[in-house]
Every structure is written in C-alpha cells, then in structure tokens.
C-alpha cells in the first residue's frame, strides 16, 4: 500500500524568486530554470526528507501536467526568430523538471514525465502505483505541475512511500490533503 508522507503546494501567481530566496537561497541554477522546473524544484525542496543529498535509487520522480513544456516552448519559439537560444531549448522537454529534481536531490531512481488531458485523481494514483511495480522503488516525489504561463500555474506534489506511516494514497485522502 502506498502512503502519503508529505504534501506541498504553491498557489498560482506566487512570486517564485521570493519563495526561493525565503526557503532555499543557495542553488543559483534555480535562476536558469523555466517556470515549470522552478515549481518542481521548490515543491521537491518542501518534500525533501533527511538525510538529504545522499544518492538513492529507490526514490522515483514522477511529474504530470497538461501543458508539458509549452510555456517555455513559446519563449524558445520567440528566440528562434532572432537567434535560437540553447539555454531555452533545453527546457523545451516536459521531463526536464524531473531531471532538475533528481540532480538537486541525487535521486537516481526512475524519472518519468506524463502529459494528461486533465488532472484525474484515479488516473494519477494508478500511474504512480504502476511505477512501484519494479520492486526497487520504495518512495516517489509525484506531482501535478501545470505551467500555463509564467504567472498562471497549478502546482502540488506528494512524497509517497510504500507501507509508510502516513494515510493511504487513495482518491479520498488525496482530495482531503489537497483541500486542507
């Protein structure tokens, strides 16, 4: 059984730079990231447990959205008209958010990015549960990070663990946690 160990969310319109300065402050790579990656990074910081920065293969990072990298794709497409920007291009992949979280935290397990039509708790929970089939994964940072624009986003994430002391990771508890 999967259990909810921690939950984090960032309200739409939050000043992400201010949040970074208030809660992290020592990771300048943050400023290179696109909005989706900044959101994922800040959520993962809030979910991180001790010991930190220790290589581990048993933790997956699974991120979901509807927009994928589209917000940053528009910035890259703008740059193409003058001079294509390699630093924008590397963020035109929906899975870079999982890579940024893995690098920061030394999570060496599975990283996967999914694009779905909308947030449906049943589908979200099923896809997360399926990632635990491999027998190695014991916990996962899993979240919905949908950056429609740089100032318009939905962002929340869970730390779930197999057979942990938290509440069961099911639809009822997911709603209960998100709405708290």
């Amino acid at each position, binding site marked *: 059984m999967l259990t909810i160990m921690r939950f984090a969310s960032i309200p739409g319109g939050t000043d992400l730079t201010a949040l970074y300065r208030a809660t992290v402050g020592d990771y300048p790579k943050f400023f290179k990231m696109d909005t989706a990656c900044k959101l994922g990074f800040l959520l993962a910081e809030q979910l991180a447990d001790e010991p930190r920065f220790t290589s581990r293969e048993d933790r997956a*990072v699974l991120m979901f959205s509807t927009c*994928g990298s589209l917000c940053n794709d528009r910035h890259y*497409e703008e740059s193409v008209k003058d001079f*294509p920007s390699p630093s924008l291009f590397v963020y035109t992949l*929906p899975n870079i958010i999982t890579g940024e979280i893995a690098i920061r935290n030394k999570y060496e397990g599975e990283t996967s990015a999914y694009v*779905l039509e909308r947030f449906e708790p049943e589908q979200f929970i099923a896809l997360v549960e399926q990632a635990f089939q491999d027998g190695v994964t014991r916990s996962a940072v899993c979240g919905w990070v949908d950056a429609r624009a740089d100032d318009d986003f939905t962002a929340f994430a869970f730390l779930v663990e197999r057979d942990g002391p938290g509440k069961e990771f099911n639809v009822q508890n997911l709603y209960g946690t998100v709405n708290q």
Partner: protein
Amino acid sequence: MRKVVCIGESILSPLGATPAENFAAVCRGESALRRYEGMFGCREPFVASLMDRERWTVPGRTFFDSIVIEAARRAVDAAGIDPASPRTGFVLSTIKGNIEHIDTQDVTLAVSARRLSDTFGNPNPAVVVSNACISGLAALLQGRRMLLGGGFDHVVVVGAEAQSRFIVTGFQSLKALSEAPCKPFDVSRDGLNLGEAAAAVVLGFGEDGWELVDGAVRNDANHISGPSRTGEGSYKALRYVLRQCYPEELAFVNVHGTSTLYNDEMESIALERAGLLDVPVNALKGTFGHTMGAAGILESILSMRSVDAGLILPTRGFSELGVSRPVRVSASMRRTVKQAFVKLLSGFGGVNGALLFRKGGGAC
C-alpha cells in the same frame, strides 16, 4: 506473473510503410538520410531522414496526428484487437508532437492523444509519455505496467515525431548535429541526425512470441543536457534488466548510439560496467536518424524482426571504434541463434532506460 507480449506492430518511415519493408531496407544497407537546405525555413542546412508529407498527411489533420493515427491503425489491424473496447488502453510517445504549429494551433500533447483515442472510439483517458529521447522505451514499459496493473487486456503504444524548425534549430543551437550522415560509435563521429517516423506496438497477455520481460528507467542525477561520465543511469538500468537474464543469452544490445561524442562514450562505459563487453552491440541511428519519440518503438520492432531472421543488424555509418571501452559494435550483418536482446536509450534530463525482450519459450 502473466507474460506481456507484442501481438501487432507497425512502422512508417522514409524507408517503408510496414515492419517488413523497413527491415528489408535496413538489411540492404539503405538510409533516407540526406542534406536539406532551406527546409522548414531553417537558415542552416542539415542532414535528416524525413517522411513524404504529401503522402502521409490526411486532409483536416496535421502530419503528426496523421502518422500517429495511421501507425496505430496498422498495429491494431495486425493484432486483430478491438480498439474501442474500454479494456484497450492507448499510450502516445512523443517529445514535441505538433510543435511546428505552435503559432496557430493548440499543440498540447494531450490533444493529440485525445484525437488518437477518439479516432478509434476509445473511452479511456489518454496517456502521453514524454520522457525525452527514451520516450518510446518508457511508453512500452508504461504499456506493460498498465496491463500488469489490471483493467486492460491490450495497450496500443504509439511513438512518433515530426521534425520542424523548432527542433532542428534547437539541436543546431546546441551544436549537436552532424553535417554528414552520422557515425555511431565511430572514431570520426561528430553529432547526430534527426529523423521522422511513427511506430506502434500492441501489447497483450500471451505465452508465445516476443515477451517484453521487464525494463527500468534510471536517472544520472548529474546534468540536464549531458550524460553522466560514469554512465550511471544506463548502468543502473542495465543492471536491473540483467537480473532476469544472463549476458550469454543476449543476441545483442541495441544501443542509443546517437553519434554524439558524449552519448556513445557514456554507453560504452555503462556496457562495460554492466559486464556486457562480450555481447554484440548495434545502433540504427545511421539508418533512420534520431526519430526521438518513435525511436524506442521503431528500434525495438526492428530488433525483434532481426532475431526472428537469425540476424544481428549492421551499424550503418560505423567503421572504426571511437569509444574508450572495447565494445563489440556490429559493423556488418551477422548471424545469431540467440533469442533475446536489450534495448537501451538515454536522453536529456539525465534519463536512461533499458528493456529486455525475449522470444517465447526461451529459458533463463
């Protein structure tokens, strides 16, 4: 545990419209890689393997959606399954989908997945796996998981990529493209070529045929756009699948082999660490270019075909080993009697994946 097997396949590429046509073209040493000037409005010329858009674009649909749906239709027909059944799932693998229309249309990847499901009257919510260059492999693994997770009898896994100014200029800006046909693992390799293709596999339960035995996705946790110097994620993914087979059982490892300096070197290190230096290695990027969201599926299907024919496909473009570890790159066609192979891929975001395929009845 029930076995997940491949029960229908399709490939659309510049080299053919069926798996058999594509396989025959690879065996003949063909490639559609050629130099394009002014294509997609790109200022710099590039070498790529592109499909005939007039042939494949259905009126009222984009080229990308057309090849996704056609590849799915052909695989569904080959498998003889009911695509409208609520017990049939669809998984779409792509990186950039309809991105060439970003200025004029809704290019959300999930919209393409919805169009795919709707075309077949399928009621299930669509799933897009967009895990950079390992997307196709990750989508096959996702299809397997959906079957084992319960609720599905079949999953149609479709991978496709349409090239565009967006993608070509991006790789040019990273200085990742070769100005000539690419040379996987070769001493003079200097970058990759992009390619277009669509490929699909229908997965289901069974005893015979090609089993998708297992697979793993692992992250380097090192860099978002460069591979690990120690091949960390690829090694861990290989180590995972090797729990379920002996290296001696493998006909070959079909590697990513993009022909960039760093990727091929990284793969050689991962193969050595995984104890696979004695297993033949081949790569298909010199034939099809890097077909991105299609690559994992396209390359897996052709690998299955080659084992069916008792062959190890050649690595087009390779002549002299140019990586630091003595991997056994298959330059020309060879025979094999073995009945299993590993598909290996890596991508931006530090992501790596390995899948183990085994033909029915093989003991381990």
